[in-house]
């Protein structure tokens, strides 16, 4: 019975069900032989904690430890710690770095002060999405870009080419570890881990600063991908295990759990945060993806601007919406979305049970005419038509 996802053995569990052939082809090209998979500096920690390791974007990553539901709930109620060291860190420096960065992103980096960060996408000339990024202004002449692991080679080439003859470019990914500490108790926990703990609690959202935690020099950013309060911590690879172990030990009494890719995915879905490869990719534009708030058409020229202006003027034909299942069924990536008479009108981009919202939820693209909250749709769950309704997003919003 162990079907499409787990038949190949315990180390091949997929993190998202993927019925459509295109998606399977895409994933299988990412799925290299185990020998070719890369390991983060926290690999041994994952084994020690009982993590189940799976191939993900060329890396061997923990998909879960105790179980996705327990990990998800721990992040919502207390705290969770995630290894996201597979993500890419690109550094641009020099007098022209600010202009180079701002030319490649849709959001406006000029609004940032030192120690401030923003979420953005980078588009191609066609106005579709190359990657979603967080851009950090270390100083006017030094910028850090964090990109998705699956897009690292593409984004390295993109930023390196733009930097050529203008500013210095450095791919710092291989010497940088990244640990996400997320949840309502994350900041209290951090306060126990180092001298600057109290100051870190004052760090506003999307700000960052240097700190020493568990004797490891770090950069701590008040950012995350779970819909909870929390931080993401950059540190040198050789300090990552020491920092991870210290946080895991300090966190145990308050209910901290190590959390894997599966919980990261259900958490971000409840918070309606896009996942590259699902909601956004080179066939989607940021306006239809609900990311118009990171597109600043009036900031001056940037890659994709002309196309985005055209999209805006023409009006959107489809929109990314959230939906809840009414009937018994779980929508999955790639399932067709149908209108009330059974005509295929869109595709589900992500779907799963939402452990905190207690419903089966999903995201997908629908024609603008069917994108209103309250619209009844059907989801084709492998041949079974299951009713669903378009709902307001995010599905989950933290109360504080």
């Amino acid at each position, binding site marked *: 019975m162990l079907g499409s996802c787990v038949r190949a*053995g*315990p180390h091949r569990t997929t993190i998202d069900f993927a019925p459509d052939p295109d998606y399977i082809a895409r994933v299988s090209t990412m799925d290299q032989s185990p020998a070719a998979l890369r390991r983060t500096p926290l690999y041994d920690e994952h084994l020690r904690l009982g993590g189940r390791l799976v191939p993900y974007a060329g890396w061997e990553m923990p998909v879960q430890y105790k*179980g996705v539901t327990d990990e998800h709930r721990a992040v919502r109620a207390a705290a969770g710690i995630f290894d996201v060291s597979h993500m890419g860190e690109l550094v641009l420096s020099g007098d022209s770095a600010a202009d180079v960065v701002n030319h490649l992103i849709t959001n406006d980096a000029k609004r940032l002060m030192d120690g401030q960060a923003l979420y953005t996408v980078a588009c191609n000339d066609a106005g579709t999405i190359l990657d979603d990024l967080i851009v950090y202004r270390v100083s006017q002449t030094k910028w850090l870009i964090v990109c998705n692991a699956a897009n690292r080679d593409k984004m390295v080439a993109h930023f390196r080419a733009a930097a050529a003859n203008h500013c210095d470019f450095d791919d710092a990914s291989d010497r940088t570890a990244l640990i996400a500490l997320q949840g309502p108790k994350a900041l209290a926990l951090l306060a126990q881990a180092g001298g600057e703990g109290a100051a870190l609690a004052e760090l506003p959202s999307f700000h960052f600063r240097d700190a020493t935690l568990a004797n490891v020099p770090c950069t701590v950013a008040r950012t995350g991908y779970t819909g909870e309060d929390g931080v993401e911590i950059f540190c040198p690879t050789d300090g990552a295990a020491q920092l991870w172990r210290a946080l895991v030990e300090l966190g145990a009494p308050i209910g901290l759990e190590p959390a894997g890719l*599966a919980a990261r995915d259900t958490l971000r879905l409840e918070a309606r945060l896009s996942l590259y490869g699902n909601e956004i990719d080179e066939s989607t534009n940021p306006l239809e993806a609900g990311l118009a708030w990171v597109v600043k058409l009036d900031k001056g020229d940037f890659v994709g601007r002309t196309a985005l202006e055209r999209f805006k003027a023409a009006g959107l034909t489809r929109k990314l919406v959230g939906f809840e299942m009414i009937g018994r069924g779980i929508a999955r990536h790639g399932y067709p979305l149908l209108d009330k008479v059974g005509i295929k009108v869109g595709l589900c981009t992500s779907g*799963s049970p939402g452990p905190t919202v207690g419903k089966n939820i999903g995201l997908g693209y629908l024609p603008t005419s069917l994108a209103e909250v309250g619209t009844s749709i059907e989801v084709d769950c492998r041949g079974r038509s299951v009713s669903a309704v378009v709902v307001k997003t995010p599905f989950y919003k933290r109360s504080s």
Partner: protein
Amino acid sequence: MSSDDVRSDRRYTKDHEWTKEEDGRVLVGITAYAVDQLGDITLVNLDVKVGETITQGKAFGTIESVKTLSDLFAPVSGKVVQINDLLEREPEKVNEDCYDRAWMIAVEPSDRSELDGLLDVTAYTELLKNAGH
């Protein structure tokens, strides 16, 4: 429940279903190893109704956890005489008690020799050992 938990009163498939003969019918469920691999079960979807026939090796439903979906394959051919309604309301019972309360369907086998072709507990234990357990 430990993932290497097996029962000596049943027969098994390579796909980690179990069968148990009881009053001339065959109960069908999934093993503790399968449950451990799937994680938190969130949906059991049986595509058959009482009175319908199933064919050995063909899917009779699907089982979904938070992040996975798997087919349920019929270990024997025959007529479905009962289905476990409990799982429609409480799929998590599969995590709690996969060998007893979370049986899935009861089948009147059409060819009893199919049962003899299934793995006994020794052979299934061996299979799990080779799967890394």
